[in-house]
């Protein structure tokens, strides 16, 4: 019987451990390429550091321009 343990991430996430270094880099690069699709949406937002969003009008996201609303960052 398999022992139950607390799970935090998906099997797919943790499968990175089973990849060779070359496979990891290829998968990572592909993920980064695909993630470019949301560049317009997160144009004004920050992932790290102490700033949350770009205050410049140019930093307004396309989604905000269309809806007239502001997004909030979760971190």
């Amino acid at each position, binding site marked *: 019987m398999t022992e139950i343990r*607390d799970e935090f991430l998906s099997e797919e996430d943790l499968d990175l451990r089973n990849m060779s270094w070359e496979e*990891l880099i290829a998968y990572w690069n592909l993920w980064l390429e695909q993630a470019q699709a949301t560049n317009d949406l997160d144009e004004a937002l920050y992932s790290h550091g102490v700033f949350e969003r770009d205050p*410049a009008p140019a930093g307004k996201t396309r989604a905000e321009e269309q809806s007239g609303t502001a997004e909030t960052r979760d971190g």
Partner: protein
Amino acid sequence: MENPYLDLTEELNRGRLRVLLSSGQAVVVHRLAIMSKDGDWIVREDLEAVNHILEVLSSHGARYRFGAPLDLRWLVGGWSSHFEFRRGDLRVRTDFVTRPPRITTDQLARMWENAEATGNEVVEPAPLAAMKLTNREKDYAVVGELARLMTDPQSRLLYSRSSRDLIQLAAEHPAALEEVIPRRPLLAHIAEGREILEETLDRERRALIHANEKRLARYQAAAEGWAKIWPEVQRQIGDQSLMDAHRLMTSRAEGVLPFEPGGGTEP
């Protein structure tokens, strides 16, 4: 095979260890998950390191995003500097701090010593877990898995998010448990069983989330004046080289963006 964040780390560390790859991209190198498209580095707090970073970013045609100038006077106060450039079809965002959150001065010194000794350019699981105690729920899942990568029982006890793991660790390492209870009061509840421990883990997570929200709010309040003039500063630096933009940005930020946020800096 090339990767934008590993390649940039290598460039930034050419000739000397100046930066450590951190946050989301470090989590990838630790083979836990791919969750972020931006890069984040911890920078050695000296002038040569900062100047080298500016030169490398300049060679990539990077531009400043809203943030603090990459200048030690602000970085010492815990501020972050942000840049962006294109690499082929990729938008590469690069974020830099010298004082990562929730890391004490002693821990930071040890991080650099270990990195020098091992040549490892990536933040190790324990300090990375401390940095990931943010106000994002998803980061706590990463901390839970990072704790399982740690080899030192004390570090695992300090960062584990699993009641089952904590109960097992406490049984296997009672001396380590006694040692770290003062640093993580939640550990005193291990003997009360899983249900109580899980409730305490939830409360601890919410408290950590609120603490980081307060921390960010202090920086946001301190940056109000800078945010007001940023659209104008951004227009001024628009067509300039990064080095010229850096000089202008620094002079405009002086007297507007305080070197430290109100309430002082804290690890």
